[in-house]
Every structure is written in C-alpha cells, then in structure tokens.
C-alpha cells in the first residue's frame, strides 16, 4: 500500500543520511520535498502542515544537530509522529460478554461494507466466536443476496427479514434469533450512504439510539482523497464510530487518507482489508504501518499471514517431523506449495523492506518458485527422501524432466542442504532468527 511512498521517503532520507551534521537548511529542503510527497499521497493538507511543522520543530532543535547521525534522527522523529497519529498502540476489537454483542458497519457506497462484513464474520469465527450476519440494506439491488452468498461461502449464519419496514426491526429480530441459536456476535451491514444524505444519516442515528451497539465501525476506502476528512466530520455529526476498518489497502499505492482521518478524529483503525478474498482481513498495527511508510518494510505482517496459512493440524505434523525424522525434499515441496497459497508473490514481496525488495525482484521470484517445484516433481520419491543418491546421471534425467539445467538442479540441492542444516540445528533446540516459523524462512527469506 504505502510502497511508493516508502520508496520516495527512502530516497529523500538518503540525502540526509550522507551527512554528518544537519543544518536547518538541510532539514527545510527535505521537508519541502516531504510536503509534496505527503500531499501526493492524499494526506489532507492541514494534516501535512501540522506534521511538517512538528517534525521541523523537533528536528531543527539541538536534539538532532548534536546527535551522531542526524539523518536517522529526523527519520525516527517522523516515524514517531506518524505512528502517534496512527494511534500508538494496537487497538483490539471490543467483543463484550453480552449475548449477543452487536456490531454495526457503516460507510459510503462502494467502500466495501458488505465484503468486509463477510470477512469480519470469518475473522471472528477463526477466533472462536459464533457470528450471525444480517443486512439492513434494502436500497442497493442484490445487496442482501451478496451478503448471504458471502456468509454461505464462509460457513456463517445469515439472517434476513424481508418483511421489515425499518432497519430497527431487522436488528431486533436478528438479536432475538442469535440469542435463541446461541450466536454471540451479530454483524449488521447497512446501506451505503453519502455524508451529505441527511435523511439516511438520521435513519442511522435512530438505529444507534434504539439499540446498544458495542462497536460501530466506519468502513473506509483507502483510496479516498482529500474529501476523506470531511466525510468523517459529517458522519460524526450523526453517529460516533468506535473504530475504522480500512479497506482496499492492497489497491492503494499511497493511502494517506487514513492518516488524515485518524489525525482529525482520533478514531482507532482496528482492521484492514488487504484483498478480495474473505480471509484477507488483518489486524491494524500502527507501528508496522509507520515503519512501512518509512521504507522499513512490514515483515511482521508477513509473518502473521504465514502463520495463518498453517492450520493447527499441519503445525502438529511439522512438529512431529522435527522431532523424529529428517527434513526431506518432500517437506520442502509441501512448504513451497503452502508458500504459494499465501498470496501472489508480488504481494508478499511488497511487504519486505525496500532495501530487500530490489534483491528479490531480480531473482524473479514467481518463476523460480515454479522451476523449483518442477525440479522436485521430476525426482522419484526415493530421491526426494534421500537426495544423496542423486548422481550425475540422475541429475541429467531430472533436469531433462523438469525442463531445467543440471546447474539449476545442483543449485537447488545446494540450497536444500543449507536448509537441512538449519533444520538440524533447530531440532537441537537452537534458536533460529525465525525459530517459530519452521521451514519458511529457510526457504530463501
């Protein structure tokens, strides 16, 4: 999401980094560029002004001029400011023990409320809740049909009351239904409305007054421009959201709107939608996002995503294997396939730090993944379990079978040997850099 922005920041601060000492002029020059970068990223101009002023104040003071690496100091100040705007700490969803808890999703048309509603249901289900989905959207054609389909594909319950004349009735009936069926969270999707449609906002206000909602989540499109702040301000006149779910984070090259809204309202961002699949909803981490903006990458989110791709059962299987057997090429293949399931290669690479990205891009990851897979598939089961039997003639056969060269087969075997060494160390209980992640990071990352 913030990739382009991050790259720009990196280049700006390279200029600063080369210096031993920083003058006020240096800082000003960098901040001028910074202003344009932030504006180009759709951060609201007032927020940009504030941010620049604050960083300048802190940067031109003694703090920076006397420190050893002034450039890094400015970067840290900026990171700090952005992180603070984004909320400092991780803020979790509040699911009260009330049965059932009521969550309301509100937002503009096309911000992704219905999809997010489905995603949130799955998200809660994965955390051992029993959500019930319902929709009060009678305006957009097939809106409820969409939610029903999503619910079915996520294995969730959907409640509909076509005869309802007011959203209030739907919510009341859904709550009753949930109570009877032992569902503990009711997710209410609403019709999209513009921040200027007072009648609809009034309806929303009445709804929130008639029922006690434990979370009112504003679903916000990350691609929104300067108008984002006004949208938030106008919504606030009618309902007070308890948090934001930022959507389309994967589409957005920049995404400054979220910085603007949080700066303006103080509403915490709780979750982010990072793709069109139902699983692609993640917890929002201000620190990570701030790091990402500044080109430090988002390796933590990557790790989390990897962990989610491993089911509990698979994890046990892997653990057993670690204690008993050797790590074989078959396991390697399995890991490889799981890696591919995580998302597109590009998507994964986008989470790496900028410095690393160049290296990975050169290798042309997607292709080499496929070749590696082809090589392993061209081996016999025996060879996969015991690669030491692979002699020159076997190598030639494998290369031919996979459409690669003997050199490539050699390289794979070499890499695999490295991984196996790591694996053995891990078995002995040595901590690895990513000890808990098992094979994934042996695999080139």
């Amino acid at each position: 999401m913030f990739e382009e922005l991050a790259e720009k920041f990196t280049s700006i601060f390279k200029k600063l980094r080369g210096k031993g000492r920083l003058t006020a002029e240096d800082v000003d020059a960098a901040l001028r560029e910074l202003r344009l970068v932030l504006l180009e990223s759709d951060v609201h101009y007032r927020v940009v002004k504030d941010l620049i002023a604050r960083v300048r104040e802190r940067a031109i003071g003694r703090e920076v001029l006397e420190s050893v690496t002034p450039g890094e100091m400015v970067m840290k100040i900026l990171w700090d400011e952005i992180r603070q705007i984004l909320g400092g700490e991780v803020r979790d969803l509040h699911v009260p023990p009330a049965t059932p808890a009521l969550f309301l999703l509100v937002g503009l048309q096309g911000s992704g409320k219905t999809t997010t509603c489905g995603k949130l249901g799955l998200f809660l289900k994965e955390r051992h809740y029993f959500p019930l989905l319902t929709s009060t959207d009678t305006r957009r054609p097939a809106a409820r049909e969409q939610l029903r389909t999503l619910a079915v594909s996520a294995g969730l319950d959907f409640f509909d009351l076509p005869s309802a004349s007011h959203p209030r009735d739907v919510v009341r009936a859904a709550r009753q239904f949930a109570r009877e069926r032992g569902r503990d969270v009711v997710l209410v999707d609403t019709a999209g409305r513009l921040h200027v449609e007072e009648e609809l906002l009034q309806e929303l206000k009445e709804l929130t007054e008639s029922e006690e909602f434990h979370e009112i989540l504003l679903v916000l499109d990350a691609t929104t421009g300067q108008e984002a702040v006004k949208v938030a301000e106008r919504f606030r006149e009618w309902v007070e959201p308890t948090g934001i779910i930022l959507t389309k984070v994967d589409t957005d090259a920049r995404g400054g709107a979220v910085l603007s809204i949080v700066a303006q309202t103080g509403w915490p961002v709780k979750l982010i939608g990072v793709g069109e699949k139902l699983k692609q909803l993640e917890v929002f981490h201000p620190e990570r996002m701030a790091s990402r903006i500044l080109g430090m990458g988002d390796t933590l989110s990557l790790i989390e995503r990897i962990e989610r791709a491993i089911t509990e059962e698979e994890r046990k299987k892997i653990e057993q294997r670690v204690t008993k057997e050797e790590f074989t090429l078959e396991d390697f293949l399995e890991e490889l396939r799981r890696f591919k399931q995580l998302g597109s290669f590009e998507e994964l690479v986008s989470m790496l730090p900028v410095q690393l990205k160049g290296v990975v891009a050169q290798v042309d990851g997607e292709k080499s993944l496929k070749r590696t897979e082809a090589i392993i598939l061209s081996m016999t089961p025996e060879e996969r379990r015991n690669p030491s039997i692979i002699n020159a003639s076997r190598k030639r056969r494998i290369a031919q079978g996979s459409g690669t060269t003997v050199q490539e087969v050699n390289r794979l075997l070499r890499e695999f040997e490295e991984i196996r060494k790591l694996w053995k160390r891990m078995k002995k209980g040595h901590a690895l850099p990513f000890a808990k992640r098992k094979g994934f990071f042996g695999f080139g990352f």
Partner: protein
Amino acid sequence: MKGLWKRWLGGIERIRESVKERFAQIWSEKSTKPEAWEELEEMLIAADIGPNLALELVAAFRSFKEKARGDADWQKWLYEQLLSFFGEEEYRLFPQAQPGLLKAIFLVGINGVGKTTTAGKLAHLAQEKGERVVLISADTFRAAANEQLAIWAERVGCRFFGGSPGADPAAVVYDGLQSALKEKDTLAIVDTAGRSHVNKNLLAELEKVSRVVHRFLPRENVENILVIDALAGQNAFAQVSAIARVVPLTGIILTKWDSQAKGGILFRIRREFGLPVKYIGVGEAVDDLIPFDAQEFVRAIVF
C-alpha cells in the same frame, strides 16, 4: 430532470465559491504575501487536483499577475487555462461508429466506484435513444454481482446476460456478445469485476476480456470507459496508469458527484492521458447520469 441539473450545478457552485473568490481576491491585491499563494495552492490541492498541478497553476497565475497590465482579464485567462485541459466534444460516445454494427461499452475500474450502477444508467440512456441494449455481467467473482446487474436490466427493461459464478469472464463476454449478435441488439454494455490495479493476474484477466471485445467489433464501435469515484484522490491516477497499460481506454465516467467531492483528479487525468470525460453520475436513480460539457463546466467555475 430539474433536480438533476440542480445537483450538477450545486456541485460546481462549491468549486466556484472557493476558486473564484480566492483568485479574485489575490488579483485585487497590490502585493500578495507568500502565505496567500500557499493558501491558493492548498485550496486547489484540497480539490484533489494534485500538488504538482496545483503548484504549476499557481505559479502560472503568479507570473500572469506580475506581467499583467491594466486591462488584463484574469477570468478569461483562468477560463482558457482550465479549458485547455479538455478537448472538443467531450461527451459523445462512439463519435465514429460504423453504422449498422453492434457497439459495445466496456466498463472498468476498481471495486466500489459504481461500475454496475453506471452500467444500469447507461443502459437506460441508450434505451431512451432507441438502442436495443444488452447488459453483460463479466463479474463472476463478487457475490451477487449478477443479481445486481440483472435487477438493473429489469428496471431499465433491457436484456441481461450473465455467467455462472467463478466462470471465466472472457468466455462469458464472448457468449454474451454472440447472443447480442443473434438477438440483433445494437449496444452491449459490459460490466467487469472491480480490479485492484496492483494485481498482475487480475489485470491480465482484464486484458483478455478486452481482447475478446475487440475481436468481435471494430475499434470505433468499442468504448473502453474507466469509471472513477469523485471521492478518489491522487491514487486514482495510479489506477488509470495501470489499467491503461492493458486496456486501450477511450474515456472516463466520474461517479458520486453528489458526494460534494470536487473531483479535481479529472484535470490531472485529462492532461496526462488525454482521456475525455463522457458522463458524470450524480445520484442513485436510473437517470442520474448527465453528459459532461467541458466548456460549461469550466465557465461555471470561473465566471
């Protein structure tokens, strides 16, 4: 129709208020403080025109003011500056269509910008003009996308063609266009799935669908329209760049004008891509789509 124009003009009014007053004020001042120039920049940036264009426009205005003599007319100057972003006959669809052949409008854009709604409205407009319309849904991914477009078809009173969920969109479009030929429709409107412009595979799929359309019809009979949300910021620019690489875009429709967003991104897209703006969506009702007239638009802002 009256309400429609009111909403359209209401939108312009919002821009006029800030633009005209600020420019007029600076023009009347003997010497302008640096902060005032910066504020002018910020006003333009707040309209999503983009920082570079804003800086450029303000710098041009500044030098115009400094060189200006007594009878110089800043309104005329600004009118020409802004109008230079647009071309002639912005709003006409199919300016050179071969008569007697099927025409197709191919709608692309990211999720939630209003493609399906726009497809419905376009169908309505075309039906009014006597076209035989078929609405084709190539969105086999989003849940209930088919149903949504089918309901629009029913409202408008035109034919609907959709594929089963998960089907190859290119195949659906192929079949849809075949059926249009068979049924002697005159216009096919193809709604596509919202695509994220960073996802290579999705863009490749879009390219494939677009190729199918072009295989059926001569270039002049196809409009590849990018649908953009007026609320979008500079990010919209990235969208156009990515999509323009795979689909030969021929125009833009700006939606959600009734959101009170100023849609300044239009100027930037218009300049860097030369894509004409065809229509503006001003509401959720079936006839809430009005042709874009650049001259009228700019005149209303400046004068």
